[in-house]
């Protein structure tokens, strides 16, 4: 007897999105990254192949961050003082693309400036040929003030600008449209809110092949189950043909996990938590793999060892298995 495999019939697919532009396309990146395009639930190979692998980004900062775990500062060492060098190190560590997240202030506590932000972005573009995402510090006014000049300075590079939220998306969308960039929209862990934000961004004029969505995922132990289910629901809706949920999903695992107590600190924690460094890396790895199983297309990490482990899992996940 031969089993009839339980294939689902889907009418929709995830939008395919290209990040970064090579010289041929008017940019300077050594290669572009393509994400999305899936026509099945994650890695259900017996329905269809996975057209683009989930890609891994490493997050770097314009200034050496004073709120990052020492584990991270130690592993990146001197490079943290120079975004160009950090970018190069991240590329060497195996990243597919880079996230430059801009700081609110410089190390002396002075407000960040558009000039400094542009300088950091330029340094990263020179330090590495990888496609780039650039996030503001997360305050609407400052984000707009820093990202608009960055977007102008990076014209043609097809970078990802973030983060659009439902109260602040017009400026980023407008500058992305003007400069040929992409945006990522983030909504707080709710299928409807993610979808609503995509509708707003599309209404503002940006074509959907230049939109990514960050559903907000939480970290292992800190709400990952909600992120997991919201992502599964978004992917299901996308496959069922709802165009406004078909954006590839970008998840910021590094940000989410490295603020947890489990990862951030090694002192004053229960003995049953075991070794700090291995715990922190596991925390990031488990979170990443869980979200990849739920449909993540871009996973942003902070630790190079996590990246290595997650990459190994992805390498195997995207190949079709032999069903003996």
């Amino acid at each position, binding site marked *: 007897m031969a089993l009839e495999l339980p294939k689902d019939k889907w009418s929709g697919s995830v939008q395919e999105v290209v990040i970064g532009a090579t010289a041929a396309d008017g940019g300077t990146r050594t290669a572009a990254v393509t994400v999305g395009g899936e026509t099945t639930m994650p890695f259900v190979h017996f329905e269809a192949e996975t057209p683009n692998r989930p890609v891994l980004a490493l997050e770097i900062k314009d200034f050496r961050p004073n709120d990052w775990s020492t584990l991270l500062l130690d592993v990146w060492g001197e490079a943290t003082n120079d975004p160009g060098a950090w970018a190069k190190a991240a590329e060497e560590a195996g990243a597919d693309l880079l996230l430059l997240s801009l700081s609110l202030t410089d190390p002396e506590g002075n407000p960040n400036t558009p000039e400094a932000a542009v300088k950091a972005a330029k340094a990263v573009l020179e330090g590495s040929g990888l496609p780039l995402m650039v996030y503001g510090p997360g305050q609407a006014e400052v984000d707009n003030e820093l990202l608009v000049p960055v977007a102008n300075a990076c014209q043609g590079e097809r970078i990802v600008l973030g983060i659009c939220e*439902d109260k602040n998306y017009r400026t980023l969308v407008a500058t992305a449209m003007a400069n040929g960039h992409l945006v990522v929209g983030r909504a707080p862990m709710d299928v*409807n809110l993610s979808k*609503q934000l995509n509708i707003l961004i599309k209404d503002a004029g940006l074509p959907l092949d230049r939109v990514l969505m960050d559903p907000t995922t939480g970290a292992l132990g800190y709400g990952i189950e909600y992120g997991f289910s919201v992502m599964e629901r978004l992917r299901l809706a996308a496959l069922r043909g*709802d165009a*406004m949920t078909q954006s590839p999903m970008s998840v910021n695992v590094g940000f989410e996990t490295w603020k947890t107590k489990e990862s951030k600190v090694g002192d004053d924690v229960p003995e049953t938590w075991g070794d700090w460094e291995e715990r922190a890396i596991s925390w990031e790895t488990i979170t990443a793999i869980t979200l990849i199983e739920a449909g993540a297309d871009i996973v942003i990490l902070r630790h190079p060892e996590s990246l290595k482990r997650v990459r190994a899992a992805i390498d195997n996940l995207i190949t079709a298995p032999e069903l003996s």
Partner: protein
Amino acid sequence: MTSTHKVTFDNAAPVEVPTGATLTEAAALAGIVLNQPCGGQGRCGRCVVKVQQGEIRRRSTLRLSEGDIGQGYALACQAVVEGDVSIHVPPQEKLERRLVTDLTASSVAIPDGYCYAEHQTVQRIPLRIDPPSMEDQTDDWSRLQRSLRQTAGIDKISISLPMLRKIGQILRDGDWEVTAIVEKSQSRETDSARLLDLFPIHFPKEKPLWGVAIDIGTTTVSVWLTNLITGQVLAQTAEYNQQIQHGEDVISRIIYDSKEHNEGVLQKLVIETINKLIERACQRAKAKPEEIYKAVVVGNSIMLHLLLNIPAATIRTSPFINVFNESQHILARELDLTLHPEAPVEVLPTVASYVGADITAGALSSGIADTEKTTLFLDVGTNGEMVLGNKDWMVTCACSAGPAFEGAGVVDGMRATKGAIEEVWINADTYEPNIRVIGGGKPRGLCGSGLIALLAELFLAGVVDKSGNINTTLNTPRVRTGAHEGEYVVAFAAETSHGKDIVITHVDIDNLLRAKAAIFAGYVVLAEGVGVPLNTLEQVLIGGSFGQYINVEKAIEIGLLPDLPWENFHFLGNTAVRGAYYALLNWQSKQRVNEIAGKMTYIELSADNAFYDAFMSALFLPHTDLSLFPTVVKLKEQNQQG
């Protein structure tokens, strides 16, 4: 090739216009002013005219059905003249009624077949009594009882002590020709009738016998003063519930009421509100409060508990239990109502904590309990209550919508009375509004229907995005940044009756969005819970104090009502007070409400997160799932192109 064409409007002198002119332009030349609330964008449909001879080209037929076009109707602002034509301009007021359901309270239809003698429990009975004599030593009360038995067939009747003190004098003052006011007991076989009052005269037959139907809403209290003999409603009054000063919602009221030192305060306030409304209704109908011999009261469970000064604390917390659901029979004097002190006050039954007598009465008056059709009945007030079903089964739920649709909790909100903006159109190019004010004159604020229309127009004109954010980058003085982020000025100070700007703020819009999302989510969950798809609904009946004036298409545009053909909607005004009115007139109707209460199945929305999901997806204009609102999507697209 330029040529001119002759356009004739009804009996006016023909005018000449060039090819390509619109009928609006031609009408202006002819000295005819056509209503154009939307500014000639072909959106409002107010300038509809009928082409009687010749042909015009219709740029847009939005607003016109196939049938309309077939009959020659066209929108003047979208009608391009390309040849000689003769045009009929229909009376404009009539057209407004096509769009706005203006079921004003002015005339309430008396229920079919109402028979005072048969259905009414309170009767005015003229008596001719044999006077006492040395031979007939029967006491006054027995004599009166005997006369009632002989004249009106009343076997058993009771009397209160205050009445007993008075009857001797009244009988003699009237020289044994008196009129008794009696509450009969058809609905309570075992109880006796009661003597409510006695007069030393006979009244002319035309003199009304007064009763009153009362709906106590969380935000608005409504009163219908009724002549029990003819069944006619002679005055309707409504006013904000004075309890509002101690909280806008039922929960605040419960909490306030459960504090020891506040005991009885809310009861006093609602009774003051009712007495004031009765007073006002009496002035209008030339009646006196003490001549009102019967009242029927409906309201949500909390309002009824507070009216009777019954602790309501158990309704607030899980598992949400009422002290009573059954209908109650109380006397006016027990409640300090200014009715006749002996007048019965009937409180109709409730179903559950958040499904009150307003709904059981509404189910009666709306007709959902008598129809074969799968029906959704919505009662939109501070709480949105809804019933889905037909004559065989009914499920019901309630959700908290907030008072926005009653004009409360919004910066420039007000009740739907004189001075309220009840309709708004916004020009999509200039962002200038065109408003209609209740009673004409300068506006003072926005009522529920005005708010609904305003939100719909802001959305269609692109002033707010689908999330309700005001686009503050628009180049118009109407949009500005105020105390609550963005706001839109509906009327500048110079245009208003109180000399202050009338605005809608970002926070107001959030409140409206939440209110409409809660109601939409409520009936979606109800329908899904039972397994009845929304698009299979055969009719939607809408009640509530905003329901009298609401504009169905605006309500669909904001996603408050489902995107169904307009003819499926029926606006019934205040169904709660109407149900109370039916029960006031007819004891069988009152029994019917009791039966309905027993048949309703209450669904608790907080039991799972289906409601939350539905709510979040409805928190968008018109809805996150645009496929649920195809006509709105089409309209928005046309608007953007136009």
